[in-house]
């Protein structure tokens, strides 16, 4: 089970359709401050079903939709698609699984698996199946590495239980 590709459009600062091939074992993302690196991390969390605006640094879920920039209008929808290669052929024998998530400024939310609209629950089942259940993908956000040390012993335990 491996990650192949990520496509983002209208998601945070990625106004235009932008594609990332994640075929290698170690992919690096670099660039100056504020250029969008952590937004790529947010895109992955979001398409995998993250429901917490705060976890994406926003206060409302629609904060992920491209809000406009100098000489550029805001957009009406954010869309991210992540593609996995699943050699187990769990999905009608298909070896690639596409999971897409969309959100409009009117708060209309939709999920798609291999092009067919599904519910969030179905996305979660797919992820559980492929070993990527909640917490099954590991994301260490910027500035958060110290949290496991500065947390009190009980909060630390909560982190353990989530991971295990």
């Amino acid at each position: 089970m491996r990650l192949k590709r990520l496509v983002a459009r209208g998601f945070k600062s990625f106004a235009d359709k932008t594609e990332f091939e994640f075929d290698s074992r170690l992919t690096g993302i670099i660039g100056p401050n504020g250029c969008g690196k952590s937004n790529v991390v947010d895109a992955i969390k979001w398409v995998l079903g993250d429901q917490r605006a705060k976890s994406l640094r926003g206060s409302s879920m629609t904060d992920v939709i491209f809000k406009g920039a100098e000489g550029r209008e805001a957009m009406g929808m954010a869309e991210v698609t992540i593609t996995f290669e699943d050699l187990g052929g769990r999905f009608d024998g298909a070896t690639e699984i596409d999971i897409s998530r969309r959100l409009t400024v009117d708060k209309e939310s939709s999920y798609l698996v291999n092009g067919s609209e599904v519910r969030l629950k179905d996305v979660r089942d797919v992820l559980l199946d492929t070993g990527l259940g909640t917490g099954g993908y590991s994301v260490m956000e910027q500035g958060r590495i110290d949290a496991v040390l500065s947390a009190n012993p009980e909060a630390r335990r909560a982190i353990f239980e989530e991971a295990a």
Partner: protein
Amino acid sequence: SKTLFEDTFHEARKNFQDIFRKLFQGGKADMFLSNTDDDMLEAGIEIVAQPPGKQLQSINLLSGGERTMTAVAILFALFKVRPSPFCILDEVDAALDETNVERFLRVLRDFIADTQFCIVTHHKRTMAECQVLYGITMQRRGVSSRIAVALHEVDTIQDGGVPGTS
């Protein structure tokens, strides 16, 4: 359930001891459950860490870089108990000096066999370790775009430029 947590904890603990020693090239560390007399379900997790040559002290007295290395050891220790297919690290190497970045990458290599990693970084040494590098730029202010980057072009990218256009 109590037993699942206990098993997980014991395995994570052993991993933590090993990985800490690898990251620090010595020293020792441990984690243990506090408050176990009342109820294991209420127990908190305590951490002790002793870099090589130093005294055992509270983790609060560790330096910024030592704390990052200790936290990375915990993260990898937990991860090893139940590895997931991929893992994303956003600037975890921020507080590390060159020597510690090197040690961090050496330990990271052991995990790459079973897990795909994606790492956001400002460290050249970490970039050099990556098989593929993506540069993110904002050629038009406020709009991000992505370009493939070769290792010798990283300075241009980091200064916000685009290779081949300077």
